[in-house]
């Protein structure tokens, strides 16, 4: 009886360990992907491949973060990032930032969104709703920040959470 009990407990513990390990592996797999791959995945998920194209690396650092892409200090905070934007005047955006300081990146994104709102109110008021409801999420490990601005807010949130393994 005792032997059966101990065997059962051991089996349960082993299964729990495997499940936790798989989740950790999933997190690790997501977090190790290049920012460009994660961004591309979200663009595909939202069916925006036809309307968005990848921005130049150095433009991503400057546009969203006010950073210089080949500055060592800036690269230490954001070693990898990628973004997609449309060629038209829309504000549609998918941007992924791998970072050692998620708080600082989120602050920069907040400033960026404020700027976009100010410009949109002058030139393109139809975009205000999207910008005001931008999806900004951080990974559980705090090493990834993702920004999505698009019409379909809930699908955007789902795609971002999937990319973050949430």
């Amino acid at each position: 009886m005792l032997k059966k009990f101990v065997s059962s407990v051991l089996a349960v513990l082993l299964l729990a360990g495997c499940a936790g390990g798989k989740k950790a592996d999933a997190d690790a797999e997501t977090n190790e992907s290049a920012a460009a791959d994660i961004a591309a995945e979200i663009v595909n998920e939202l069916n925006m491949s036809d309307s968005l194209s990848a921005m130049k690396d150095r433009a991503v650092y400057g546009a969203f973060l006010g950073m210089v892409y080949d500055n060592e200090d800036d690269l230490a905070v954001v070693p990898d990032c990628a973004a997609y934007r449309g060629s038209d005047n829309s504000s549609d955006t998918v941007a992924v930032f791998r970072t050692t300081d998620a708080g600082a990146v989120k602050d920069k994104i907040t400033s960026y969104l404020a700027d976009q709102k100010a410009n949109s109110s002058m030139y393109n008021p139809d975009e205000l709703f999207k910008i005001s409801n931008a999806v900004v999420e951080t990974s559980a490990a705090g090493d990834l920040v993702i920004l999505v601005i698009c019409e379909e807010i809930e699908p955007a949130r789902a795609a971002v959470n999937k990319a973050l393994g949430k």
Partner: protein
Amino acid sequence: MKKIWIVTAAALMLWGCAEPPVQAEEETEAQTETAETEVYEPVYACRTINYYDYEKPVPESEPIEDVYFTDVLMGGDSRMGSLYLYSDLGAKGAEIHYVTSLSLWRIYDAYMATADAPLYDLMISTTRHNIYLLIGINEIRGADFEAWKSELSSIVQELKQAKPDGNIYLILAYHPRYLSDITDEQLAARVEEENQKMREIAKENSIYFIDPDEALDDETGVLREDLTWDGLHLNTEGSQLFADYIASHVVREERYVKEICE
């Protein structure tokens, strides 16, 4: 017998001494002939010096001929749109591209209202020799100008590499009367900061910059009220005044580049 040998030796010696003068004369004659046929031209070392002061805005000069604008490409944000819509530069032949809300960061991917291509591609691929760029007002509220300067400097260098015989004119931001979501004091400070970065880029890269504040401002140093629709964008009169200013601030290189021979 002995006397005969001595006399003979003396005679031979005298004869031997006589020959060289003949040869020396021949050589002298040859040298003279050479001297008469060779003419030694003085050699000059020439170099080109550029006296233009890149630290200063393009000075005023007599208005350029209209044909100049057939060799001009202008690009920028909505302020350039005013020149496109209301000035005579297009009619004179200038190729003008703009899109509202254009920022420096979008110069690579945002298509112009006037062309199905981003401004960067249009500038790099143009066959026109004179490029004017008016950009920066959409970043005036929040941009980090160090990063902005670094990016614009990279663009300028790439343009210079693509067009070694071309001329690049940065157009400084004229001071708007007001802008939404920023106080007048902040706006003035930000415009001045951005303009200072452009002056630095012009000096560091030996390109030209023009300062439209000289033509467009009132006595308080902001855009004249009668020249604008909304405090920022030029109306018809303002746009033509701006265009006239551009036409009277063109660098004639022959006035600054001289060849010095020494």
